[in-house]
């Protein structure tokens, strides 16, 4: 008895560490200045998957991500931590997707992966903070969902039931649902384990086709050890295009996105007249006295 688990993960710009050079002079976001990272809550989801794999021997954990060629990094990071394999959904036709077009693309890829018992993903990604893709994928696959999961408490393979603790506004609840099911995992769930040194050694040269075609990304002129990829098939990270997953172009990328960005405004705070004070005793006392006098503070 074992579980087939799929983990949805996204490579995101690290919006939490935005430096001064993150905006260009024209006021657009300078993506190159932001490091690309594994979306934090997707790591929480991966941890839940890896724990299930340990408690249910014989289970498999498969990662699925969508992005440009360099997003193969996400699959590698998953392999380093104990995942069994992964797929990179990559095609220009996917570009510009809103959450609905993204969930459509992911759902087609999941259908191609085939049989599964549990799909896990982070609650939301830090670049959009929408928390929409998980439930939308569930809807597209006709699955029930448990969002804001904090811990998977139990999976009963015979009864095909899963029990999980989830966050709700102002509290927690424990819910039980049937398999197959989709869960999104909250940032308050257990953090992901670190990379395993042996697995890093095993998979460090794992690459997708686009990465292999552009060795410069790895600081190499030509692909080192090209023969490795034939000898060790697990080093080839599978890339899928729209065609591979039999996607309908109309439902992908920009054309599959009902939401359109009408305008983007760079942040300029409206300056208002303000008083600038120093931290001196005199200034602070004068301010307190003023606030007391006009009854701002009592």
């Amino acid at each position, binding site marked *: 008895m074992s579980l087939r688990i799929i983990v949805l993960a996204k490579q995101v710009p690290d919006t939490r560490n935005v430096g001064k050079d993150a905006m260009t002079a024209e006021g657009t976001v300078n993506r190159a200045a932001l490091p690309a990272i594994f979306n934090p809550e997707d790591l929480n989801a991966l941890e839940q998957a890896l724990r299930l794999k340990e408690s249910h021997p014989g289970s498999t954990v498969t990662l699925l991500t969508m992005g440009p060629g360099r997003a193969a990094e996400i699959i590698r990071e998953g392999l380093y931590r104990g995942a069994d394999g992964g797929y990179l959904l990559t095609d220009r036709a996917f570009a510009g997707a809103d959450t609905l077009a993204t969930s459509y693309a992911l759902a087609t890829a999941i259908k191609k992966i085939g049989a599964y018992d549990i799909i896990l993903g982070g609650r939301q990604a830090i670049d959009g903070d929408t928390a929409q893709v998980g439930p*939308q994928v569930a809807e597209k696959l006709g699955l029930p969902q448990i969002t804001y999961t904090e811990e998977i408490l139990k999976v009963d393979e015979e009864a095909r039931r899963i029990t999980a603790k989830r966050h709700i506004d102002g509290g927690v609840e424990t819910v039980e649902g049937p398999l197959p099911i989709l869960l999104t995992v909250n940032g308050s769930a257990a953090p992901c384990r670190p990379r395993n040194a042996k697995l890093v050694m095993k998979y460090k040269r794992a690459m997708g086709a686009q990465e292999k075609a552009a060795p410069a990304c790895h600081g190499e002129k030509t692909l080192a050890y090209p023969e490795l990829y034939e000898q060790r098939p697990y080093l080839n990270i599978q890339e899928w295009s729209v065609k591979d997953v039999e996607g309908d172009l109309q439902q992908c990328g920009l054309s599959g996105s009902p939401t359109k960005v009408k305008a983007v405004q760079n*942040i300029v705070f409206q300056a208002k007249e303000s008083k600038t004070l120093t931290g001196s005793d005199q200034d602070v006392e004068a301010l307190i006295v003023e606030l007391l006098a006009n009854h701002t503070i009592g």
Partner: protein
Amino acid sequence: MNNVFVYCELEGTKVADVSLELLTKGRKLANQLNCQLEAILAGEHLAGVEAQVLPYGVDRVHVFDAPGLFPYTSLPHADILINLFKEEQPQICLMGATVIGRDLGPRVSSALTSGLTADCTALEIGSHEDKKAGKSYENLLYQIRPAFGGNIVATIVNPEHRPQMATVREGVMKKEVLDPNYQGEVICHEVAKYVPETDFVVKVIDRHVEQAKHNLKGAPIVVAGGYGMGSKEGFDMLFELAKELHAEVGASRAAVDAGFCEHDRQIGQTGVTVRPKLYIACGISGQIQHIAGMQDAGIIISVNNDPNAPINTIADYVINGSVEEVIPKMIKYYKKNSK
């Protein structure tokens, strides 16, 4: 048909504040669009609950009252909205950016292939021109939200798809009764027509909801700390100042992420929105997500040793100094002068 709908969240038989705030906003949007405002209530033992929503100017209340609809689970509530919307063809649907709204909204939008914008900080009506397609649109819902980690503010529209769906956090919109005697129609739907029995597959087996430990949202004075407070101990100083001023303590996301302060005190787009008469920002640089949660404060004081901190541009008083130095002085001089 083509009206503005608000999904009203229930805790037992009490309608959530965020839903009443959205009804207030929905009424204004409906007036602008010259259409009606409709509310959806789904739960159990709902007789009389419509009285909580009608005063906000609701023209029609759709009641779905059946065992199993409370506590909330995704599938039955999603099917209520999906099937009701197929009949009613709303042009706009609003819901709270709560755990429930963020669980329900995407599912409904996916089934109806309609666009959904999460965590909007403003909603307006306006026109839109799609130059590429050579089409222009009138009376679209502008869904405005900070994006990309708050470095930009994006205005999102859904030109072709209905309903235009948006979620909004609690406290972002104002709650205002329109008329305590407002007359609206109450429609009690037969739940089984909308929700197949197979939807009740996920069971809530245990549930704990606690009353909030503090009243940050309603506090007239807020003392908020950022990453610049440096530590949990740094926040102790803020609690001391707050105790003197009868204020509540809030925090920026950076401070919460760093573990200086509990998550339920986070102010900003992904936390609580506050409108105090006085806001004292200590060691907060002022990311747009934070600003979104406190910019309507009456008076803003920023204590920061970086004179170029973005928050200083919206502050009424900027104190250039370290928090370690200034806050104890504030406590000291408040004690000295208030008695």
